[in-house]
């Protein structure tokens, strides 16, 4: 089932995306943020909280930000103090916490002198990630991974132990990927809640403890089920880079990571999250994590048929940003969705056109295919039928990561039986239509092809407009998801700081060096 697509047009899309990203390069690489800096401290090994439960990375970074020193990077100030007083990192943090130290008013030694004190910690931090990456590879080789389309379930109870038990059951039922949905407003928290293992609403708090507990549970269940189970969490939101670090260290395999999502749906400040995204993706890349982007969500607020091209346009931009951070195509799980109104005549035909288009535009990317959500209703049976066609569209168009649709989507976060029934239907459909795609061809010049070609053409047109006005202005005009955000609005703006010329962090180079600087590479297959 192959679509004939215009290679020129695809190449044009990639070029426009590169232009759009380049336009923001100065902003992105020229700034840092509070959460980027906290992420570095976490990478250096700083853990724990102060007596009020505030994480120490927050305490230290706030201290420096309050002292207007963030432009040089928290690493510099910490290294400076460590060097001058011969203190450990923890001791410096303790000094800040107790007020014994005021890092920014210390005498400023030359970076060449002070920065080396962090070398060992930095390497140690990355070693932890290396180890996890190796462990993942070892386990995947040993146990194998799920077959595509891989079945992706979510757990969302708000209590990690209950999540773990439900997720284990899901794995035994056939799930390949497990995502723990986050507490409803965690993306707006400017810190990572420590030891919050229970009490989440609409999802469970994302933090190191919970990642660890789930990882263990999934390793166990995977061993029982005879495959490596991929674990997913979210590093969109105000703590993107920090959660990327926690995910890397606790061996998460997939992380939802997308500035566009945060800007549009969480009203997070553009500059803040673009910078955060850049660094978090470097970390994801280094850790061998697959990112998932959130373009699928656009179709829940914009018209799901008319706005199809906005998804594709955004995917090209997101791909470019990801490549800039050093991610490989195999790590770029762009999001798309089966969201056309089921009452629309020929909805399945259009869905297949769209799904196949995305699959062919990003052939090496483990694209994430989202089930119907917007037009799900309280009629769980009808919903089950919608999901059955979604499952079919997925296997016919050769999708990679298959988010299971829940028949109760319009009602509640998934119940145990909803998840089971979703897995059962998907397994049934995937088996029933296993070899079917190979036996069918799409009629050249027919409606499927024409629809796909139109969506692609419209996406290129949109990219041209975005390139001409710039991404931030495009977002301000509500070009994505029918939601407009302005560059100076949104949460977290005050955490963005322009880097001083003498900004220091040991990590940028270390992260980039991994695997022969994939950084900024092209989509290798890339038609451009």
């Amino acid at each position, binding site marked *: 089932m192959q679509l004939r697509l215009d290679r020129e047009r695809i190449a044009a899309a990639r070029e426009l995306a590169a232009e759009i990203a380049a336009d923001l390069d100065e902003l992105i690489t020229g700034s840092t943020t509070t959460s980027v800096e906290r992420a570095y401290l976490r990478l250096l090994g700083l853990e724990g909280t102060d007596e009020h439960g505030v994480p120490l990375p927050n305490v230290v970074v706030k201290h420096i930000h309050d002292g207007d020193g963030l432009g040089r990077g928290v690493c510099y100030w910490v290294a400076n103090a460590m060097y001058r007083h011969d203190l450990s990192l923890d001791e410096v943090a303790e000094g800040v916490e107790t007020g014994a130290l005021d890092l920014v008013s210390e005498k400023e030694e030359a970076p060449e002198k002070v920065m080396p004190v962090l070398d060992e910690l930095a390497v140690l931090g990355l070693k932890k990630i290396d180890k996890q990456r190796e462990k993942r590879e070892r386990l995947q080789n040993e146990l194998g991974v799920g077959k595509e389309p891989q079945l992706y379930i979510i757990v969302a109870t708000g209590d990690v132990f209950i999540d773990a038990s439900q997720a284990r059951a899901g794995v035994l039922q056939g799930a390949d990927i497990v995502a723990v949905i986050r507490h409803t407003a965690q993306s707006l928290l400017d810190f990572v809640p420590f030891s919050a293992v229970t009490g989440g609403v609409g999802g469970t708090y994302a933090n190191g403890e919970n990642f660890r507990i789930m990882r263990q549970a999934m390793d166990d269940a995977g061993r029982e089920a005879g495959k490596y189970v991929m674990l997913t969490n979210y590093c969109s939101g105000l703590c993107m880079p920090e959660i990327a670090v926690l995910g890397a260290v606790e061996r998460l395999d997939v992380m939802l990571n997308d500035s566009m999502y945060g800007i549009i749906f969480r009203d997070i400040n553009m500059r803040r999250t673009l910078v955060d995204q850049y660094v978090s993706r470097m970390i994801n890349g280094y850790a061998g994590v697959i990112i998932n982007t959130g373009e699928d969500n656009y179709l829940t607020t914009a018209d799901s048929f008319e706005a199809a091209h906005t998804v594709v346009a955004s995917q090209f931009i997101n791909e470019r940003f990801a490549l800039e951070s050093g991610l490989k195509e195999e790590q770029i799980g762009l999001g798309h969705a089966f969201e056309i109104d089921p009452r629309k005549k020929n909805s399945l035909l259009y869905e297949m056109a769209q799904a196949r288009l995305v699959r062919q535009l990003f052939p090496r990317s483990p694209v994430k295919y989202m089930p119907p959500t917007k037009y799900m209703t309280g009629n769980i049976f009808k919903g089950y039928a919608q999901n059955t066609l979604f499952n079919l569209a997925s296997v016919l168009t050769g999708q990679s990561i298959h988010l299971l649709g829940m028949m109760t989507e319009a009602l509640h976060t998934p*119940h145990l039986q909803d998840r089971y029934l979703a897995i059962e239907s998907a397994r049934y459909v995937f088996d029933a239509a296993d070899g079917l795609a190979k036996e069918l061809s799409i009629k050249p010049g027919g409606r499927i092809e024409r629809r796909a070609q139109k969506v692609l053409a419209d996406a290129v047109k949109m990219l041209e407009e975005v390139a001409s006005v710039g991404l931030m202005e495009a977002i301000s005009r509500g070009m994505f998801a029918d939601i407009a955000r302005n560059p100076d609005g949104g949460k977290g703006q005050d955490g963005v700081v322009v880097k001083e010329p003498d900004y220091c962090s040991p990590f940028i180079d270390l992260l980039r060096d991994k695997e022969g600087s994939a950084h900024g590479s092209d989509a290798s297959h890339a038609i451009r």
Partner: protein
Amino acid sequence: MDPTRVMPYGDMPNDGATQLSFTLPVPAGEEAKEAARQLVAKMGFAEPSVAHMQDMGESFSFFIVYGRCTATVDYAAVRVPRAEFPLLDAPRINAMIAKLLGRRLKVFGACIESDAHTVGIDAIMNMKGYDGDKGLESYKEIEALNLGAQVSCEDLVSKVVTEGVDALLISQVVTQRDVHVKNLTRLVDMLEAEGLRERIILIVGGPRISQELAKELGYDAGFGPGTHAGHVASYLVFRLQQHEDEAPGNPLPEGSFHGSHD
């Protein structure tokens, strides 16, 4: 069919046929099946019969059970609490506002606290509307401002104070662990503390909101799934009219439905 004794009807009238499904935290097996049967019997269903049992792993079992419901409902006596008001068309609504208020009605909409689901409130507020019915922005006598997602109660209350509004439209979609009840209660408490509650029309909507729940939480009205802007606008006019009826001939003083700065 006796309307005072209505019960489910599957194959034959009054056979009570009801389908149930649920998960029990016990391993699948004959005992589990019997437990499922007993459970349904305990809930008063006659002839419970387990149509399907599925081992879901981790000692969870899924059941599909059929039973005969033994309860009946007096359908003739069912009364549904609802905001009873006449549905008007846009020109009429505009005319009534002009007549009753002598100025534009100021309405703010918001999805409060952690809730970021704006599609519902957008459907009511924005020009585009919903299902072909234009939103409040399209009414020339309504000044509609949609504050969007994740508006904290603090911000909202201070807006009421500083900008002066006649009506607040609140949306709540996430309901897990009753977070909507908490958020909605918090807002009312804050409005009351500020002495603003009586001065505005306070409306809530969302997929799990009913008139009943709204009243219970101290709101004037609650709107559920399928609401159109026309409903809400009609309701607003109805409330203005009510006020007029209570003080006939007396034009609404500026500020009566309007938060002032004091």
